[in-house]
């Protein structure tokens, strides 16, 4: 009897410590804990990250302006009349993004930033309706971050060439 109780105690201790180790979970609307986010790394341009590699030696300039010498390949098409770089990128810590309340977040959590404006989309993403999940329908799933499908600077999904139309059913019989 005593050993059973001891076993149960150990089991729960292991369970609790295991739960404490889980880093970042997302919760669906039903409050049920969803599988862990296993998104691939954010889709940076080549050799662009960490940003501090260049920016640590530069004087930060908080003035809103059009960039000319660097990052001029980025054409902002995302509420560009009201937004610019430092609304999302942080002035002081270049390797981070910041939320509207100033809280710094990693690029891996960028969905929190997107969700500030796109609340319903974030909700649907958490519930597996918006966005893409791959892996197991009854187990571990792989998520994609918003930025994997939507370029944050120009988020509209780009058109593509469709795969070939099906053969004419009369092919070879004409």
């Amino acid at each position, binding site marked *: 009897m005593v050993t059973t109780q001891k076993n149960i105690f150990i089991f729960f201790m292991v369970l609790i410590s295991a739960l404490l180790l889980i880093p970042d979970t997302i919760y*669906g*609307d*039903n409050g*049920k804990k969803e599988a862990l986010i296993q998104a691939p790394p954010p889709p940076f341009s080549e050799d662009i990250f960490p940003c501090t590699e260049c920016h640590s030696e530069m004087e930060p300039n908080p003035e809103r302006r059009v960039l000319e010498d660097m990052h001029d390949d980025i054409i902002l098409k995302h509420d560009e009349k009201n937004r610019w770089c430092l609304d999302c990128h942080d002035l002081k810590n270049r390797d981070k993004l910041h939320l509207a309340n100033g809280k710094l977040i990693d690029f891996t959590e960028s969905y929190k930033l997107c969700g500030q404006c796109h609340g319903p989309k974030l909700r649907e993403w958490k*519930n*597996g*309706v*918006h*966005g*893409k*999940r*791959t*892996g*197991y*329908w*009854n*187990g571990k799933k792989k998520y*994609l971050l918003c930025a994997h*499908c939507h370029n944050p600077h120009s988020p509209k*999904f780009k*058109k*593509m*060439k*469709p*795969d*070939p*139309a*099906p*053969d*004419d059913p009369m*092919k*070879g019989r004409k």
Partner: protein
Amino acid sequence: MNMSNNKIKEKKESRRTFLKKTALASTFATLAACGSDTSWDEFFQKNFKTLENDDKNKIIERLEKKYTEKYGKKFTVSGKDPIDDTLFGYGLDISRCIGCRKCVYACVEENNQSRDPQIHWITVLEMAKDKGVDLFHSNSDYDRELVPDDDHFYFPVACQQCENPPCTKVCPVEATWKEKDGIVVVDYNWCIGCRLCMAACPYGARHFNWSEPDIPKDEVNPETHYYGNRPRYKGVVEKCTFCVQRVREGLYPSCVEICPVGARKFGNLLDPDSEIRYILKHKRVLVLKEELNTQPKFYYFY
């Protein structure tokens, strides 16, 4: 009197012999017509669903050997039964599908569809935005430089895995039926190719092998299921099985994995926490040809 009796007897005997000979000859003729690659075991194989596990395993072993020899690749043919407490449902977001047809060709490769003559289990229909879901004015042959077209939306159709399937009811030999997990399957070895099921299906989801399927050896997928993507025969009907070989292992169907916009959703309808149940609860859902009471488990939503 005696003599005439004898005569009759003689006559009877000769008639019997004649029938025997005819029966024997026609049996050989049938066997010969079946082609040289049909073994006795294959010819006398019973309806797969009626068999015990031992017999099923023997058939699977025979098929694995045959496919491995034919395609020069190690084949596995699974006979895996449905997972308990599972009823599969599929969701497709028509507001997000862009009509790129990636799913069509991912399906062809996963499920070993014939390349020529071409069989596609998924047909993507292009529909005008100002007409709405209108099958009569839809077009499956669209060929555009870029998709999605601004004036159109896209509506992929495959087997709707009906809860009340008309196709299985018309099969005269019970070669097609609905499994416990809701997938409508075909026993390709039992199918007689009468195509009644194709006539009964209101979705055009069943396809006929007019000739021996043509699958390039280097593209053939050797991970198969008896009811799913194993190479078919000439003269049998085939259809989408929600990738039975994948979903019974817990994986998503191939079309879900490939969709570049994540418009395709899949899960267990009996699990209240599944993605598909969330969609049924929170989104605007429609099924195709609802008035026919086929009760599809393929839900279009937006």
